[in-house]
Each structure stands twice: as structure tokens, then as C-alpha cells.
């Protein structure tokens, strides 16, 4: 049994978000992190590894510096890492991205008792589309928003969160699960893990490595293979700052209540 975890390196949007004058995101000036939901997927995989001794393979698509993130996940305890990286893959929307990742996962190979895991969504795009689209391309059943995962033989029982409660879903392996933060608390890298991370196998899948997969085609990858196009991107006008009230005493509160009453807000 093995678990393949798909992860993404993202700009840390909890820090300062910098926007270029032309309205695009200034990625260069932002720190990068492993997408938070993906770390929950990694932790879920590592927990199953602790229980069953299975193998954990982590895969990402991105530029070469994403290797650093993969090393960190190896240091957490993953066994192998795959970096999917090629100029031909650039400019992909979620459809094209999932097409490429599905091809990479095909090349790693999904067998009868395997699981593919993803985070629910990445904090930069916030689409939550790539996981289900990979599942569709690999013809795997999917369970998204997993908040608890129990494995018994080849049956996985997942607690799938809804806005107003949850569903319990049973699914057979192989399957794809997308994970949310309620699932677990990701572990830290261990010191020995950091040492070992550099001797663990790391492969790079470039265009050559994947081009024979039926999913990889000029019309299904990169900018040309993306069904969606950006018509325009823009920054919203900043809402002007309102009125700062002087002081923090009783009169100030009364003044505010007075304004609200006068404007018929209360």
C-alpha cells in the first residue's frame, strides 16, 4: 500500500500581500510556504504510515525551488518526492494542472490499495478544484472535506464536513481524499528527519517524462490547454477610511450611538 500526497507551494498570504503596479501579484517579494491544507493531507498520510507501515510519496508541480518544500516534507517523514516541472506546464489553469498531476500520479502508479490525498484548497487560488479534477481524470472516487479518516482493509470511512454538520462516507481504495484543517495537527520536521531528507529519493518529472501519457497533449496542458482565460485583473478601489472617534470613554460611545440613531441604523 502507498499514499500519494499532492502538495503545492504557495505565497504566504497571511503576511503582507504585495501587488505590482500593473495589478498582478508581486510573488517575488512574498515568502513561500507549503499550502496549509496540504500539510493536513501529509499528516494524515504519515499517520496511516505510522499505523500500517505504508509508503508515502509526495508530489508537487512547480518551479525548481519547490524542491525545498519537498525536502521539508521528506523531513516530516515522507519516503519519496516527485517534482513535476517543465516550461510546457506553465500557465495552466485548474483543468490543465489536474491533467498534468494526474499524468504524474499515473506514472507513479495507483494500485488497488492505494490512496491519493490533496488539501481541500490552496490559499493563493482558493478554487478547491484540482483534487476533484485529478480524481475524475484518474477515474477514482473522491471524498472532499475529510475531517476524519479511518481505514479498515480496503474500506475507508471518512467524516466529510458540511456547513451544517457532516456525512459519514464509505469508499473503497483506490480513492482520492481532500483534507481540511479539522483533520489533524501537522507534525514538525524531526532533526533526524532533516538529516535523512537529503538521502531520500527525489525525482523530477519533466515534459519528456510525461509526454507519452494520454492525458498530456498540447490541447490539455499549459496555457493552450486551459479552458479558462483571464480577461482582466484589477485591484478594487480602497474604501476610504471613515471617521476615527476621539477617545475611548463614555462620551465617545454615546456619540457613536447618537450617529447610528440619527442615521436610522439602530
Amino acid at each position, binding site marked *: 500500500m502507498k499514499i500519494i500526497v499532492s502538495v503545492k507551494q504557495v505565497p504566504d498570504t*497571511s503576511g503582507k*500581500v504585495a501587488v505590482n503596479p500593473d*495589478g498582478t*501579484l508581486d510573488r517575488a517579494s512574498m515568502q513561500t510556504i507549503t499550502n496549509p491544507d496540504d500539510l493536513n493531507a501529509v499528516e494524515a498520510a504519515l499517520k496511516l504510515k505510522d499505523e500500517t507501515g505504508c509508503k508515502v510519496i509526495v508530489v508537487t508541480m512547480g518551479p525548481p525551488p519547490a524542491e525545498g518544500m519537498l525536502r521539508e516534507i521528506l523531513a516530516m517523514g515522507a519516503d519519496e518526492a516527485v517534482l513535476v516541472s517543465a516550461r510546457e506546464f506553465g500557465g495552466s*489553469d*485548474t483543468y490543465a494542472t*489536474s491533467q498534468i498531476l494526474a499524468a504524474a500520479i499515473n506514472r507513479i502508479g495507483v494500485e488497488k490499495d492505494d490512496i491519493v490525498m490533496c488539501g481541500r484548497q490552496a490559499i*493563493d487560488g*482558493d*478554487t*478547491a*478544484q484540482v*483534487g*476533484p479534477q485529478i480524481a*475524475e481524470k484518474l477515474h477514482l*472516487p*473522491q*471524498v*472532499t472535506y475529510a475531517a476524519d479518516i479511518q481505514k479498515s482493509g480496503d474500506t475507508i*470511512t471518512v467524516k*466529510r464536513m*458540511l456547513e*451544517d*454538520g457532516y*456525512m*459519514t*462516507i*464509505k*469508499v473503497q481504495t483506490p480513492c482520492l481524499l481532500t483534507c481540511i484543517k479539522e483533520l489533524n495537527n501537522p507534525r514538525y520536521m524531526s532533526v533526524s528527519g532533516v538529516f535523512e531528507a537529503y538521502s531520500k529519493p527525489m525525482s523530477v518529472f519533466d515534459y519528456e517524462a510525461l509526454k507519452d501519457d494520454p492525458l498530456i*497533449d498540447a*490541447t*490539455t496542458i499549459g496555457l*493552450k490547454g*486551459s*479552458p*479558462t*482565460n*483571464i*480577461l*482582466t485583473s*484589477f*485591484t*478594487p*478601489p480602497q*474604501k476610504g477610511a*471613515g*471617521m*476615527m*472617534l476621539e477617545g*475611548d470613554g*463614555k462620551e*465617545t*460611545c*454615546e456619540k*457613536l*450611538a447618537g450617529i*447610528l*440613531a440619527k442615521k436610522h*441604523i*439602530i
Partner: protein
Amino acid sequence: MATFNNTDLAAFKDVWVFCEQRQGKLMPTDFELISEGRKLADELGVELCGLLLGDNVEGLAKELGGYGADKVIVCDHPLLKDYTTDAYAKVICDVIEELKPEAFLIGATNIGRDLGPRCAARLHTGLCADCTHLDVDMPIYKDFLKESSTLSAEKIEGLNSAMVLGEKHDVSRDLKMTRPAFGGHLMATIICPRFRPTMATVRPGVMKKNAFDQAKADACQIVKPAFELSESDMQTEVVEIVKAAKKLVDLIGADFIVSVGRGISKDVEGGIKLAEELAAELGGVVGGSRATIDSGWLSADHQVGQTGKTVHPKVYVALGISGAIQHKAGMQDSECIIAVNKNETAPIFEIADYGICGDLFKVTPMLTEAIRAAKAAK
């Protein structure tokens, strides 16, 4: 499978809305989407259809007509009783390939966000996630940009075409899907020029609901297409559905929201109590920033922000919330924002209509009292 790059766009027409039901009840999002879909169908000059899946749900269909649906396509089957990705994606994709809608809207609920990408991948088409604004008509879209963007008038006027695979593509009939990225710091308008249907998931709580019209409800047509579905199409099994026992926090429907942030950390229970008192005085509910939810001070259904709920109440009171972009993304369209924060440089003050720089533990009870007095004096 649709053919690549030579989809006959003209073969597709009508706007469809996926009408989600849970336990035989329509979701509030359905009415918002039907209302928005009505606007788009009118701009395109086509019909608006609701798509309703379930077991014995035909009785729900007419209500959707009251909000603007010309037709409701009803797919009834025992296996469609509860949502499963397998059964719903199969039936929806089969019906779409048969009847060819031009645009397909889905509410960005936990279920919609599971279903949308699965269908888009199978239909080989584009899907824009969590849209907050939709247009077809160019002049209306341009007016929206003039009001909601910092783009120059010249740039906006020139937006009649886009370069698609090196060729100029006229975008006048494309669905223009606008969504926030990076916590609302950047907005992007996405089009799907080469494939149909154009799919969008739409953030709950953002689109305005039309008034219900009984005459329209009565006139709404019900269509029951033939479809195939069997046990062998199902790879997942729903064992049980558990509704949260606690009272639901209706953030989206609330007119007044009092939210707390990390600023309550020195006395969490006391801080929440003060917020509850203020909310009760205003007739609203308590919300929270991600920090309060991550720390376990409030349950996740209280969360306002990019990964929580988007709200636009009449009054939003932010107590001890610094105003990170992820939070602002979920509440910046509130009609009136009141911020109380110790730090006068907190970014929340950049968007607040009224700001008080002070300790929330001191200010909040006085504010509650002052509002009570002001109401009594009326």
C-alpha cells in the same frame, strides 16, 4: 467527451442553475442563484432552467419559478436522495451533454465545490470558482468595472476582446466571471471562450435574491428528462448524515454582526460575553476571525472571512480584529463597519466607517449601554 478546441459554441444555449437540496429542502443559495441566473438569461436572451436532483423532489420545483426560473429540470431517483459525487456528476453530465446549456451556475457550498470540478473535468470545460460577480452584457460589465476597479476608463473601454491562443476573441457573449483572489487584494475576471457550458461556482450570500412572485411560480414548467443511473455507478456510500445539534449561526442572513478577534485573548469568555451582549442589543449574531476559530474559542460556523463566510450586514462591529486581508475579504462590503482596536495602526481602521481606538473590554460595555440608551430615547 467533448471535442477539443472545436466545440460548436452556437449549439449551446440557456442558463442553468444547479438547485441543491438537502433532506428534501432547497438551500437558500438556490434562490440567490436563480435570481442571478435570471439576470444573465435576460442579458443573453435565453431561458433560465433550474436543475434539481433528488428523490421525490418534484414538489420543490415550482418555488424556484417564483424567483425567476422559466423551467425546472427534475431528475428523480432513489439513488439521488442524498448527495454523492458519483451519482450527481453522472446524471448532471449526461443531461448537460444531451440538452447543452450555455452557462451552468452552482452554489459554492461544500457540496457545490465537490460537484463543480468533477463535472467540469468530465465535460472538458472551464470552471471559475467562488464568483462574486457575473455579467454577460458588455456595457453593464464596464459600468461594474468603473465602479469597482481602479482601471482607467480607457482600459475599460478597450476590453471588448481577449487574446485567446494568439487570436483575437470577441468576448461580448461570454460569461464574464469575476472573483477575488488573494483575499480580495486582487480581482480577476475569467472567461471560458472555447468550451461550453461555461461553469461557475458562486459564493453563497453574495448575489441578491429577487422577490418571490407566485404568478411566475405557477407558470414555471417542469421537465423530466430520461436518464440512466444504477448501483454500479456508485463508488461511494453515504452511511449517515449528521446535522449539527447546536443552533445554527445565521451569519449570512444577519443584519447585525459583532465579531471578535485575537483581541479577546486575555479573557476569552469575558470577551465573547461582551460581544454577545452587544449583539443581543442590536438584534444580531456573534462572528469571529480565523484566529478565534483556530484557537477553539468559537466554532467554525462563526467564522467570517475568506475561508469562512462572506457577510454584508447593515452593521459589522469588529472587536479586537486587526483586519488581515483574509478577514476583510469576508466583510468589507458591510454597509457600516465599526472597529474597536487598541492599535491605532490596525488595518481594520482603513475600511472602518467609525473607529474607536481603545480596549474592547472597556469600550464594548459602554457602547452596549449607549446604544440601549439611544434606542430608548427614540
